[in-house]
């Protein structure tokens, strides 16, 4: 596994600063990544030159905005190898994408006796929407358990076999756990679900900017992600859905832009994707997201994946030498995706994050929107370091030195 060029760092203006007098070491990429200059420029260029509403205007700027917005959609389709750009719905992010499927597909298809299957490693964004829709429809929510520490907290695949019955209408799971650093075998999980006739939804929030993703090869029915976790802007995300499914689903929100005809008491809907994009869409951020797709494919996602995995492995090795550390997920030396979360008996995550901040290091401390999982693991919170294209082994050394100092302080 090889690392990317450290010169990539210079593409990201926000990294060129000091925090508390120390060079910024940004290791909170699981929460959001920094943005390259090309993405920031695309956003500014849209507002400076092309700002206009889409789909309705007949003037030059509106046509430019519409072309840019639809080009972003086509690029989004290409980014995950979707068969058709009509399979790309722009949303605010992963959370809205999952809510859209839960409310639209769920309300039309779920009945008492049906099962929605998710896993114990889901982020709240792929858990609470399913709690809500199963309550509303009388369907049942079930969980694939996370195995114990000896099994490295992976999904319990034997339990999955038993849970996958013909009553399961949808299996929703995370591609990459934001707490455990585990990359699930999405194609294998989708094949298992398909065998019992269940649809699949993948939460790709953590993987989209880090791992190669081909929805046709994976065979999923829906896939959700956010732009801001893949070098793009906040407020824009994608729901991928197979066209036949999207065309059969009722609207999620209604209003302008999603109708074909409106009469006083009745309206007809446009086909997907416009059916699910009521109101003026987030044109500017979709166009900036286009620049993010280009930026990441300019580096190459297999190379990004190698880089992130290599850094996470190095971090695991360096941190495993710290006294009293508990590292979640894959054991040191085993494959893990680009993040490491850990806990110490001696120091709480918030104290660690506050201390590390004084050394210019940005970490995440807390329950990572995984409250039920943290309860199961017996941890109130963990500290997480998550890596991206601009991080370096030197920064891992800075992290390890800072943690050593913190542990001494609380010893």
């Amino acid at each position, binding site marked *: 596994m090889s690392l990317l060029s450290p010169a990539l760092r210079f593409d990201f203006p926000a990294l060129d600063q000091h925090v508390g007098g120390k060079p910024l070491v940004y290791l909170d990429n699981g929460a959001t990544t920094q943005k390259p200059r090309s993405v920031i420029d695309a956003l500014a260029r849209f507002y400076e030159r092309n700002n206009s509403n889409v789909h309705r205007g007949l003037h030059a700027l509106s046509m430019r905005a519409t072309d840019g917005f639809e080009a972003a959609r086509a690029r989004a389709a290409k980014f995950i190898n979707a068969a058709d750009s009509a399979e790309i719905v722009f949303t605010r992010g992963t959370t809205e994408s999952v809510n859209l499927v839960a409310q639209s597909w769920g309300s039309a298809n779920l009945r008492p006796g049906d099962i929605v299957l998710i896993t114990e490693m889901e982020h709240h964004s792929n858990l609470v929407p399913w709690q809500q829709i199963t309550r509303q429809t009388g369907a049942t929510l079930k969980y694939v358990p996370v195995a114990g520490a000896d099994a490295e907290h992976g999904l319990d695949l034997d339990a999955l076999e038993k849970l996958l019955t013909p009553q399961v209408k949808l299996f929703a799971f995370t591609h990459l756990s934001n707490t455990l650093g585990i990359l699930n075998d999405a194609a294998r999980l989708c094949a298992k679900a398909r065998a019992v006739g269940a649809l699949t939804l993948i939460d790709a929030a953590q993987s989209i900017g880090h791992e190669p993703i081909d929805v046709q090869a994976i065979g999923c029915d829906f896939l959700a992600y956010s732009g801001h976790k893949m070098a793009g802007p906040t407020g824009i995300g994608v729901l991928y859905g197979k066209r036949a499914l999207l065309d059969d689903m009722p609207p999620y929100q209604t209003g302008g832009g999603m109708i074909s005809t409106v009469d006083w008491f009745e309206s007809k809907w446009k086909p997907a994707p416009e059916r699910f994009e009521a109101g003026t869409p987030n044109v500017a951020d979709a166009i900036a997201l286009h620049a993010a797709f280009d930026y990441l494919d300019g580096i190459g996602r297999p190379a990004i994946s190698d880089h992130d995995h290599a850094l996470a492995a190095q971090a695991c090795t360096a941190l495993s030498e710290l006294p009293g550390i508990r590292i979640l997920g894959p054991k040191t030396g085993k494959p893990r995706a680009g993040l490491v979360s850990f806990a110490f008996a001696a120091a709480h995550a918030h104290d660690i994050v506050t201390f590390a901040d*004084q050394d210019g290091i940005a970490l995440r401390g807390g329950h990572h929107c995984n409250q039920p999982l943290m309860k199961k693991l017996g941890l109130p919170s963990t500290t997480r370091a998550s890596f991206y294209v601009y991080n370096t082994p030197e920064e891992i050394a800075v992290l390890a030195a800072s943690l050593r100092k913190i542990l001494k*302080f609380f010893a």
Partner: protein
Amino acid sequence: MSDLTDLYQAVILDHNKRPRNRGKLPVANRVASGDNPTCGDNCTVYLRLDGDRIAEICFEGAGCAISQASASLMTTQIKGRTVAEAEALFNAFKEIVTTGKAPDEISDLAAFAGVHAFPARIKCATLGWHAALDALRQPPSS
């Protein structure tokens, strides 16, 4: 780390390591819990109110050094006081953690003055206090 030694005063580290009045209080007649949903810190305060006076007080919980030390110190400060005195002390404490200025007559609580430079941590420092005040305002539980 000069800022941090302001934040993590010796008194705070001591209460974090050796919390006072930690545990359940079987004879409690008031109980209240608080949590900080953004970070998962939680604190439960048990107290026995004898008339208007806090006769006994204990706390349980999990969280950062600031939240746990603050809850521990809080129990030592309001034990034996009246409800009105406890409320006044909490108001004084909130003033300390938000402004960094402590009145001369306040001793140990002044250790939390450093929190004002870390606005994200003010909620940690007040978690136990909020639980205690909630408990005091409740109707008797037994």
